[in-house]
């Protein structure tokens, strides 16, 4: 495990490997995500993401998008076209808008990526209208984008902490909000999957010399 060198550059391959690691993470944790979603939602979050990331993998095998931005835009589009539900457009927008913000250079700096991810997260917040504390993926994504100012691992830890912190919250957005007070005491599935995505990011960074 290497230090996370916020001064490094990130190439196309890095983003392909991030998506691959994220897919593996989703495959491993799909059951748990669906279980969390069955407590306060409709029991499909794990299979939704599984379907989406599998199709991202298929597409990555067929196409060779040139540049980090193109990889993420392609992945985002793929999620939008295959996931459905709330998480499809939201995660799709996250990747697409992050990708768009990266532009079409063959490599990006750590700072460029940090800025781009913040733009992506902002787009998710705008699309879904959720604020911090509403018990959604925003509760993991916003602290992660913030902590990315320090390092990949700091971002992963912040996301994980954010996800855990959704437990005592009452949901105000998405399906869980229908439950009112009964949503309290359960961890938000979308915040949980967001933490997995950022954990996959940190893992990828650490596996990259």
């Amino acid at each position, binding site marked *: 495990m290497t230090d996370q060198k916020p001064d490094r550059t990130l190439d196309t391959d890095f983003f392909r490997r991030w998506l691959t690691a994220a897919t593996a993470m989703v495959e491993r944790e799909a059951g748990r995500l669906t279980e969390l979603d069955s*407590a306060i*939602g*409709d029991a*499909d979050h794990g299979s939704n993401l599984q379907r989406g990331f599998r199709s991202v993998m298929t597409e990555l095998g067929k196409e060779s998008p040139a540049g980090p931005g193109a990889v993420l835009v392609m992945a985002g589009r793929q999620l939008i076209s295959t996931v*459905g*539900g709330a*998480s499809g457009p939201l995660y799709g927008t996250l990747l697409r808008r992050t990708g768009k913000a990266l532009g079409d250079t063959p490599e990006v700096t750590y700072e460029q990526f940090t800025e781009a991810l913040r733009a992506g997260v902002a787009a998710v917040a705008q699309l*879904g209208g959720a604020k911090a504390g509403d018990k959604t993926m925003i509760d993991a994504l916003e602290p992660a984008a913030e902590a990315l100012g320090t390092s990949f691992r700091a971002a992963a830890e912040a996301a994980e902490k954010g996800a855990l912190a959704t437990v005592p919250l009452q949901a105000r957005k998405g399906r869980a*909000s*229908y439950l009112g007070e009964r949503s309290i005491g359960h961890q938000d599935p979308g915040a949980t999957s967001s933490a997995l995505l950022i954990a996959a990011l940190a893992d990828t960074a650490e596996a990259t010399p």
Partner: protein
Amino acid sequence: MKMLINVPETVVADALRGMAAAHPELSVDVANRVVVRGDAPVAGKVGVVSGGGSGHEPLHGGFVGPGMLSAACPGEVFTSPVPDQMVRAAAAVDSGAGVLFVVKNYTGDVLNFDMAAELAEDEGIQVAKVLVNDDVAVTDSLYTAGRRGTGATLFVEKLAGAAAEEGAPLERVEAIARRVNDRSRSFGVALSAVTTPAKGSPTFDLPEGELELGIGIHGEPGRERRAMMTSREIADFAVHTVVEDLRPSSPVIVLVNGMGGTPLLELYGFNAEVQRVLTERGVPVARTLVGNYVTSLDMAGCSVTLCQVDEELLRLWDAPVQTAALRWGR
């Protein structure tokens, strides 16, 4: 939990193949998951398109046909469809008169239909949208995603579909749809949880002596759990809740809807209690529909939807409809 399926992954595609075989009058695109009435696009007619997660059959595919939906987009089980489906459906039914999207108010459906509307407009299709949000069990406030769309979807699709069939222009069809939604309210009750193919076990644990009040159609727990109630007590509670919210000043159409796992025998018995409460409360009933229409897979339970109608809406209700699940007139 046992299901009559092959593998969870192919449930929706398998169902569409089976639907295509049973209904030659529909044009079913299994690969792209769009169910379109066979004669679309109908010249000069506004298209009415809906869609949502699968598992609520006959909603929406069973409501495609003359006098109701022009097309339906089924998503994965309990998962909103993706924008590509809606764009394809809109393109298939648009005759130049525009398309109305009937969208149940769930974050996923709203976001996906919004994206689809943008894309369809990019392709030169005029799109209007109406949100269905009739479920009075959910508080409509800043602190929720708003009321859910449940049983009123059937009313909106039927009445907007009838208006479109009569040749009404897009704004008019949209206005009808909005009026129907504004005048409709629902309340649902679950006697059992639901089992989705992907999860394979009940979404929540509902003990023998209890029921869930104020449930939706996606296996989410309701607002409140109580000791088991009789048909009479459930009707009292549900109709009271709906009537207090709707406060109808003219006759209503009643939908006594089964969630899928409750036998028709029980639904008819429940209807007797619903009618009793409406009579007691002085609410005149214009029409009644009893059956499994907006379901939640194998969930046991029911919902009551009331739609307050005027003469025009009643005429549109009685207008001919020729779909797999709803047929009358002509």
